[in-house]
């Protein structure tokens, strides 16, 4: 079952291709985060879904119904698509009260039903007290909630959100993000949320679709994207990586911390090895033992739940010598001490060097 589907959607502004053969399907009640660097075309995808951008090629369907088909020149206007839309700048109507904004899309209801629906929704979003005030008197977080309530009021089967939290400061953002997640889940609406923030995408998405320069790079659960990235870009996008160039010899690549299997890549090809900081496990040296993969501690900092250890590799001929390791808890070896480093291959990725950009 598909609630919202894209097939072979492409879109150009003038000569500039911003969406290139995009395909994605979102199930009922599923939250999909469309993530990528700014200018990758993700907002255009959302606008195409809403019908705000005329479809140029491909097909968009809502449930069983094809709402836009470039080949048949059909394009259902936005007011007939029944989608809820939340904008980055909220786009609240400044001439209407909170109740006026939230009730804007409610149609075909008796006055009583309308009031009941409105007050229930406002209460649920903690906005009951503000029904009769104008949006400009509200805080950023409250405005965001009004925007969400306005989009959800008509009970849409699909909700589209365009960077809905980017206008909020960090402390507030996590709280509102959490509220939004539970609200969307309770409504069982299929959700497409556009964001440039990988952390936000991982926090909210049942699935994540990663875009870059108009193309869909990878779709999957947050775990898929973090643990099994399809290329160096995907690996780097969702978390810090140590990056070191190497060459495949006998199905493996040498690193300062031991060889990594690279059986699928031809012998002699140049590659990039991406090592997540948590893949570098640092151990204090026992007295008198000789480390297999030694490194010198340059600095060690506690970042809260994790510690960041800056390592310098002294011996060997490596293109880079500085590495970051992330250890759980408080792990702060003395500066300039020599430590033993072990490599976790499940969080280390090898890609052909050409993939680097």
């Amino acid at each position, binding site marked *: 079952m598909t609630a919202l589907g894209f097939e072979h959607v492409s879109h150009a502004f003038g000569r500039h291709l911003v969406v290139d053969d995009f395909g994605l399907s979102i199930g009922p009640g599923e939250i999909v985060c469309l993530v990528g660097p700014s200018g990758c075309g993700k907002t255009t995808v959302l*606008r195409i879904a*809403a*019908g*705000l951008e005329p479809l140029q090629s491909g097909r968009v369907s809502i449930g069983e119904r094809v709402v836009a088909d470039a080949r048949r020149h059909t394009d259902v*206007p*936005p*007011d*007939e*698509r*029944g*989608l*809820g*839309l939340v*904008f980055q*700048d909220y*786009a*609240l*109507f*400044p*001439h209407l009260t909170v109740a006026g904004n939230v009730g*804007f*899309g409610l*149609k075909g209801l008796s006055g009583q039903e309308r009031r009941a629906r409105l007050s229930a929704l406002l209460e649920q979003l903690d906005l009951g007290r503000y029904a009769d005030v104008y949006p400009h008197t509200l805080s950023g977080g409250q405005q965001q909630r009004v925007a969400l309530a*306005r*989009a959800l009021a*008509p009970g849409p089967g699909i909700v589209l959100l365009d960077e809905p939290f980017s206008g909020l400061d960090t402390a507030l953002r996590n709280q509102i993000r959490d509220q939004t997640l539970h609200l969307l889940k309770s409504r069982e609406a299929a959700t497409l949320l556009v964001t440039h923030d990988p952390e936000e995408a991982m926090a909210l998405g049942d699935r994540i679709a990663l875009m870059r320069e108009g193309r869909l790079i990878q779709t999957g659960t947050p775990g898929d994207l973090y643990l099994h990235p399809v290329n160096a870009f995907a690996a780097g996008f969702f978390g810090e990586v140590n990056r070191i160039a190497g060459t495949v010899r006998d199905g493996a690549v040498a690193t300062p911390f031991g060889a990594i299997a690279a059986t699928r890549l031809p012998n002699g090809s140049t590659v990039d090895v991406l090592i997540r900081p948590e893949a570098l496990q640092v151990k204090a040296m026992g007295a008198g033992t000789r480390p297999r993969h030694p490194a010198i501690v340059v600095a060690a900092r506690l970042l809260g739940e994790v510690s960041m250890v800056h390592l310098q590799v002294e011996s060997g001929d490596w293109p880079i010598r500085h590495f970051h390791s992330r250890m759980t808890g408080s792990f702060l070896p003395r500066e300039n001490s020599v430590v033993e480093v072990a490599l976790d291959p499940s969080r280390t990725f090898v890609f052909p060097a050409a993939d680097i950009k």
Partner: protein
Amino acid sequence: MWTPLAFIVAALISLPVLVVTANLFTPAGAIWQHLAATVLSSYIANSVWIMIGVGAGVLVIGVSTAWLVAMCEFPGRRIFEWALLLPFAVPAYVVAYTYTGLLDVSGPVQQWLREGLGMANAASWFPDIRSLVGAIVLMALVLYPYVYMLARTAFLEQSFAAIEVSRTLGCGPWRSFGTVSLPLARPAIAGGLALALMEALNDFGTVQFFGVDTFTTGIYRTWLGLGERPAAAQLAALLMLFIFALILMERWSRGARHYQHTGARYQVLPRYHLRATKAVVASVVCATPVTLGFLIPALALTVWTIDTAAETIDKRFFTMAANSFLVAATTAVLAVALAATLAYGLRIRRTAAMTVATRVAALGYAIPGSVIAVGVLIPFAFVDNAVDGWFRAHFGVSTGLVLSGTLVALVFAYLVRFLAISLNTVEAGLGRITPRMDDAARSLGLSRSGVLGRVLAPLMRGSLLAAGLLVFVDVMKELPATLLIRPFNFDTLATHTYEYASDEQLVEASGAALAIVVVGVVPVILLSRAIARARAGQDGGSVP
């Protein structure tokens, strides 16, 4: 649906301009040969002299006053800032009638010279106001605010750094003005000059009254007096050449204005503090145009109106006022509706064809009322004849004039001339509303018309109101097109003023003229409020 609708509106409004322009390329008839041989050279010479004279006048007055209030501090500066706009309220023909009443042989000034000072022969040496020079002086006195307004903004917006640098490099106020301020403000000044000259060429009442033959009087005489419509159309087309040159100048100035902002724009320049003699000179320089262009005419009109109120403020006066109000209000409402249609059409879909059509439709502001009258009456007469012919052929009845000589034709001509004013205002208002509003309303189930009616219109209520008001006032003042197109026996305040003045009943015309001036003050108040707001936004860096 919106795009074709907007396109049709734009095409309809462009029609008169296109009709007149087309006359540039039609072969000239015999009467044209006659005109060309006899009066054409004087039309051209007078029009050119008016452009040169009025141009020089508005530049001197506009730039000097703008520089003083923008860059200097002296007693009364804050009042002059808005008071210098007041002459905007007085149409040139009203100033002309007032000063004629004041300065001619029987007027109070010469009377005082003769009786008060015993100069019996004052009439022999006193300059005749009803002359080319008189027309130039009076027009410059009421048209300089165009230059003043744009130049003042340009001086205020000039980068602090650019002037600071020139001052630290050893340039005094005068050299800074000549080497930095003036060149930077040049595009804005040129834009203001172009607008003032368009108005000067549009003038009919002054030159007609002063007996100075120009294109506008020529068109009027050829059309109504001689009944030679093709020749009048050719005159109109020729006048359009002058106008096109001014439009190009104005367009260029808009483009070039973008380059003048070189740095931090919102830092207010420390003003030169003028003391003693210099301060007095500055106050006098600013007070003179306000006094001559507004205070004296307004005062004279008020006195005369009070003197003659018993005879002139009668039932007829109120009928004319009602007529003026009727056509002005109707035009204002339609102009706002059409402007909203065009602006919304452009907002939905800004295609090249749409943009061009809208720009052509907005050309009317540049084109003299008499030219527009010709451009309206030609196609309307064509339609009338076609309808009449069709009815006679099929039903054997004559319909006569359906459109020409009706209020429909008059209001249409006003729309052609003043649509640009409402369009600019509405477009600016619409531009301040984020397109996300449209998107949000659409996603919540509103159609395009619903978005305009329920979201955009309430949000730009202020702009719509201002647009309507500006059009209303301009229609109240309009004279040449009204004279040519108005239905028989349909008098407005403007035509009444003109007719009484033509009959040398200057004092009796004062009531109607004063009413026009009073209404004309409304947009001046709007403008000065906008200026006050702009100042409030800049207060941060002002120097005590």
